[in-house]
């Protein structure tokens, strides 16, 4: 069974629909017991990092999530709360990934902030991307992104460049995975990535 963690961060409907299309059963929950017993855990969401962290704390999930041992996938704000900290609202995050979430910097050749739309993923290095080609497009909506870790056992398993700024499109450490993009909104490519995750 798959647990979709409900911590009041926007619309979970698209993740639910993506799982339905894959023929998967799931439960939307903030109950630590159900989350602990799930085969796979999805931590989705859109929103603001510091309030997402507040929402996790108020449900006691900040203590639960880092101790999970089954495959966990954070999506968008979900990957950000798994990082060390975020510049958004100066949030201290869960510290699973050795990465800091930074705001996009304005550039000489103007980039729009937020980054909204389809961008490519490169340097793919994980079973999460089985069957996915270098340069395939995925859907992004974000103003903040995880930096590339400098050291430690957090692995960058996909990169994306916006303007001239390269960030971690996906991270992995042990059983934890995260994508800054939205696989649930990324057409057949995203659907394959979700399927791959559920096969981990």
């Amino acid at each position, binding site marked *: 069974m798959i647990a979709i963690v409900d911590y009041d961060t926007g619309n979970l409907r698209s993740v639910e629909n993506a799982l339905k299309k894959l023929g998967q059963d799931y439960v939307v929950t903030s109950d630590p017991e159900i989350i602990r017993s799930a085969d796979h855990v999805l931590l989705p969401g859109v929103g603001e990092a510091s309030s997402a962290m507040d929402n996790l704390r108020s449900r006691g999930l900040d203590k639960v999530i880092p101790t999970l041992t089954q495959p966990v996938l954070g999506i968008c704000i979900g990957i950000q709360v798994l990082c060390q900290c975020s510049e958004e609202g100066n949030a201290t995050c869960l510290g699973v990934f050795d990465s800091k979430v930074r705001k996009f910097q304005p550039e000489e050749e103007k980039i729009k902030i937020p*980054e909204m*739309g389809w961008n490519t993923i490169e340097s793919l290095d994980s079973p999460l991307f089985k069957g996915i080609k270098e340069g395939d497009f995925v859907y992004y909506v974000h103003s903040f992104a995880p930096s590339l870790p400098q050291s430690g056992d957090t692995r960058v398993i996909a990169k994306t460049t*916006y303007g001239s700024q390269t960030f971690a499109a996906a991270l992995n450490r042990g059983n934890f995975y995260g994508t800054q993009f939205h696989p649930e909104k990324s057409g057949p490519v*995203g659907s394959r990535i979700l399927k791959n995750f559920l096969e981990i």
Partner: protein
Amino acid sequence: MLAKRIIPCLDIKNGQTVKGINFEGLREVGDPVEMGAKYAAEGADELVYLDISASFEGRKTFTELVTKISERIDIPFTVGGGISTYEDGARLLDAGADKISINTAAVNNPGLITELAEKYGSQFVVVAIDARLHDGTQPSGETDGIWHITTHGGKHSTEKELFSWAREAQERGAGEILFTSMNHDGMKSGYPCETFAKLDEFLQIPIIASGGAGNVDHIADVLTKGKADAALAASIFHFGEIRIPDLKEELVNRGITVRI
């Protein structure tokens, strides 16, 4: 590199796709869910569904339709038309919409942008702007060069002006601006690229160009000269004048980054 987006727009009346010329003279063109799925399969980057039903029943049908769309379509979609309150936005979010587009209600009540963006995030709120360049009815016979904001599908003119209103919408938390020139909409003669380029300089958030596409050149122009982040069109797709795969191939040939 971030791709320029191609967005088919479907106008919905009582559960069916229709397309008008200058917002009038509607023709039915097909089932919205099937059309959306077809466009997504062909490579559309997003979809926009606009409810143009005037009735309560039509609205209800539209909300049910949004649920069906969200169950079927795996790319982002925006819904708009007739959103006048925060509750309307919440209802469509619950039905599965990724974004909502607000137009007349935002002009009448700019606080609505703030309210929706604070609760659901800027990415949820597209502010659609219909504007008309004064068409020479000045005593001098010249245009006054001002893009006047219109509401109710272009029927009402307001005192608001395009650039200041777009900036205000951004500052209130809009995630994108969808700009339609009422002078160009339905004419298939191209987009006002200079105005789009000026709007791009003026704003930090993405701009979707709408209203006026008649051929590939028009779309290529608004994405390059007009610097738009996305191009939205309806009839050229609905009536099969341009197929999305062919359009994207043409854009690639011209050095424009699109998702293939």
